[in-house]
C-alpha cells in the first residue's frame, strides 16, 4: 500500500469534523455513535501505520503536495510517532464511549467537532516534521482545548478556560518569536534541515531561540512557571476531555519540545537548554507533589499528580543519555495508560455520585467495587510498587540517573514516590476502609470492560515489561538519534 495514505490520519478527522453540521440534520442521537465510528476508523489507520513502521523499520514520510521536504511540508511518522498516534487513537476511541454517558450539556454536535479536532491536533503535533506546521497543530490542539475546557459553561469552567487562554497566548507568542529567530539565522523551517545546519548557527541566537521555544511549549507540556492552568482545567473540563489532556495532549507538547531541543545536540547551546529543562522539570515535580498533598477534590489531586509525573518525564529527557530517554519514553507510555484509567474511573464516580470530592469515595469499595478496584490498581501502580507497570519505568529512570551520577535526581524520584504513596494510600483507605451508608450502584458494562482492559494492560506490562520495553526503546532511539532522523528525511538539495 502506498505509504502516502498515512496522510489520512490527518485528513479523516478533519473531514469528519466538517461533516458534523450535515450529520446533525439526521438528529442529535446519531452524533456520538458517528464519533465512535470515526475514531474506530482512525484507530484502524493508526494500527496500519504502526504495523508498517515497526515491520519495515523505516519511518513513513508523508509529503504534502508532493514537494520534497525543505520546500514542502512533510509528516514524519517514525517509531515514536507511530506508537503515540496509535495511543492517541485508542484513547480517543475509549473516550467516545465514555462521552455517551458523561456528556449531557448541549450542544453535542459542537462537542463532537471539538473532540475530533483535539485528537487531530495532538496527532499532527506528534507527526509533523516542520516547525511552523508544529505551531499550527499546537494552536489547533490548544484552541480546541480552550473551548472544551469551558464547555460546561459553569463559572469554574470559564475561569479555567480563561487562564488557559491567557497562558496559551503568551506561550504561542514566545514560540513564534523563537521561530522567527531560527528562521532568521537558518532560512529554513524543516526540522531535519534545521538539525543539519544547527552547528552553523550563532550560539547566542540558538540559545535564545531554544529557550523561547521551550517556554512556548511549556504551556502545553505543563512545565512549572506556565502550568497554572492545568489543575483548574483538569478539574473543570468534562471528564472525557480530562482523560485526553492527561493521556496525550501533554505528551504531544513534551514530545515537540524534546524533538526540537534534541535537534541541537551537537551545538554549544545544548547543555544550557538541558539544564533549563532539568530545573523546570524538578520544580514541576516538587510543586506538583506538594500541592497534590493538600487536595480534597480527587480529580484535582490526580491533576497535580499528573503534573508531577510529567515533571519526572521532563527530568528524564533533561538527563539526555540514551538510557534516560528510553526510560522517559517508557514512563510516558505507562503514564498514559494509568492516567487514562484513573481519570476514567474518577470521572465515572463523579457522574454516578455527583461529585469527585473525597466524600464520594468513602466506602466506594462497597458501592462500586469494580471501579474502586480499578482506582486501587492505578494508584498502586503510580506509587511504583513492583509488578505494576510504572515500577519499571521509575526503576529505569533511577538507573539512568545513577549512571551519570546525578544523585539529586535519584532523591527526587524517591521523594516523589514517597509523597505519592501518602496521598494515594489516603485515597485507597477512604475507598476500602471507611463506611458509607449508600446503596450499591449498578456498574455500566462498557466502562467496566474498558477499565478491566486497562487494568489488565497495567498488570501485563508490570509482569512482562520486555515486549513493551523493546518497542519503547525503538521509539526512544528515533527521538534520540538525530543523525538517523536527518538521513531518513529525503531532503532536496537546497543549500546556501
Amino acid at each position, binding site marked *: 500500500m502506498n505509504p502516502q495514505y498515512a496522510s489520512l490520519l490527518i485528513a479523516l478527522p478533519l473531514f469528519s469534523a466538517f461533516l458534523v453540521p450535515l450529520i446533525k440534520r439526521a438528529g442529535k442521537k446519531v452524533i456520538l455513535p458517528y464519533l465512535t465510528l470515526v475514531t474506530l476508523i482512525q484507530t484502524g489507520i493508526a494500527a496500519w501505520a504502526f504495523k508498517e513502521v515497526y515491520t519495515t523499520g523505516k519511518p513513513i514520510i508523508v509529503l504534502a503536495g508532493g514537494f520534497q521536504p525543505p520546500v514542502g511540508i512533510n509528516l514524519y511518522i517514525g517509531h515514536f510517532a507511530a506508537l503515540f498516534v496509535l495511543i492517541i487513537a485508542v484513547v480517543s476511541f475509549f473516550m467516545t464511549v465514555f462521552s455517551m454517558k458523561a456528556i449531557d450539556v448541549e450542544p453535542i454536535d459542537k462537542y463532537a467537532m471539538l473532540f475530533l479536532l483535539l485528537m487531530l491536533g495532538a496527532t499532527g503535533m506528534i507527526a509533523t516534521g516542520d516547525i511552523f506546521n508544529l505551531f499550527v497543530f499546537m494552536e489547533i490542539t490548544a*484552541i480546541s482545548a480552550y473551548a472544551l475546557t469551558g464547555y460546561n459553561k459553569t463559572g469554574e469552567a470559564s*475561569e479555567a478556560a480563561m487562564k488557559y*487562554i*491567557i497562558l496559551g497566548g503568551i506561550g504561542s507568542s514566545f514560540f513564534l518569536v523563537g521561530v*522567527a529567530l531560527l528562521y532568521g539565522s537558518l532560512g529554513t*523551517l524543516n526540522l531535519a534541515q534545521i538539525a543539519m545546519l544547527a552547528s552553523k548557527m550563532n550560539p547566542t541566537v540558538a540559545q535564545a531561540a531554544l529557550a523561547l521555544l521551550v517556554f512556548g511549549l511549556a504551556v502545553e507540556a505543563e512545565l512549572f512557571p506556565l502550568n497554572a492552568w492545568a489543575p483548574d482545567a483538569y478539574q473543570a473540563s468534562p471528564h472525557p476531555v480530562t482523560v485526553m489532556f492527561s493521556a496525550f495532549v501533554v505528551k504531544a507538547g513534551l514530545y515537540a519540545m524534546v524533538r526540537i531541543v534534541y535537534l541541537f545536540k551537537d551545538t554549544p547551546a545544548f547543555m544550557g537548554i538541558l539544564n533549563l529543562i532539568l530545573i523546570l522539570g524538578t520544580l514541576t515535580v516538587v510543586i506538583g507533589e506538594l500541592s497534590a498533598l493538600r487536595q480534597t477534590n480527587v480529580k*484535582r489531586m490526580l491533576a*497535580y499528580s499528573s503534573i508531577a509525573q510529567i515533571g519526572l518525564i521532563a527530568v528524564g529527557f533533561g538527563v539526555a543519555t540514551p538510557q534516560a530517554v528510553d526510560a522517559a519514553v517508557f514512563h510516558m507510555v505507562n503514564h498514559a495508560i494509568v492516567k487514562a484509567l484513573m481519570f476514567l474511573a474518577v470521572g465515572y464516580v463523579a457522574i454516578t455520585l455527583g461529585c469527585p470530592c473525597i466524600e464520594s469515595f468513602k466506602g466506594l469499595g462497597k458501592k462500586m467495587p469494580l471501579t474502586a478496584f480499578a482506582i486501587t490498581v492505578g494508584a498502586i501502580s503510580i506509587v511504583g510498587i513492583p509488578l505494576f507497570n510504572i515500577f519499571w519505568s521509575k526503576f529505569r529512570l533511577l538507573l539512568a540517573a545513577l549512571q551519570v551520577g546525578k544523585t539529586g535526581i535519584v532523591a527526587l524520584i524517591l521523594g516523589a514516590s514517597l509523597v505519592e504513596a501518602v496521598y494515594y494510600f489516603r485515597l485507597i483507605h477512604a475507598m476500602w476502609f471507611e463506611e458509607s451508608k449508600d446503596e450499591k450502584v449498578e456498574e455500566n458494562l462498557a466502562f467496566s470492560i474498558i477499565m478491566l482492559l486497562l487494568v489488565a494492560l497495567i498488570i501485563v506490562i508490570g509482569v512482562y515489561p520486555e515486549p513493551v520495553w523493546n518497542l519503547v526503546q525503538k521509539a526512544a532511539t528515533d527521538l534520540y538519534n538525530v543523525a538517523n532522523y536527518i538521513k531518513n528525511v529525503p531532503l532536496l538539495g537546497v543549500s546556501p
Partner: protein
Amino acid sequence: MISAYYFGAISLILIGLYAILTKRNLLKILVGLSIMETGVNLLLISVGYVSGRTAPILTEGATPQTAVDPIPQALVLTAIVIGVATTALALTVAINLYEKYKTLDIEKIRGLRG
C-alpha cells in the same frame, strides 16, 4: 544599532506582556495579548525583509532576484488568522465569566482554588 522595525516589534511585545502581567481587567489583558501578537507578526515580517527589494509578486519588472522572502509573509498570514481566532474565543469566555460573576476583575473571580 538595532533597526526601527525590530525596536517597534520588541516594544509592542513588551507593552503587551506588561499589560498581561499587571492589569486586573480581563478585557485589558486580552487587549495586551492582541498587541503582543501584532508585535510578533511585525518581528517575523521584518526578519524576512531584504533592503531594496520589492514585494514577491512576479509580474513584469520583478524577477526572483529583486523580491523579498515570501515565507515569513505566508507564516504571518497564518499567525494573524490564528490570533483573531484566539481573541474571539477568549472574548466569548470573558462574556461567560461576566454572566456568572458580574465582574471582569480577575481578583474577584476566584472560584477555583487548590
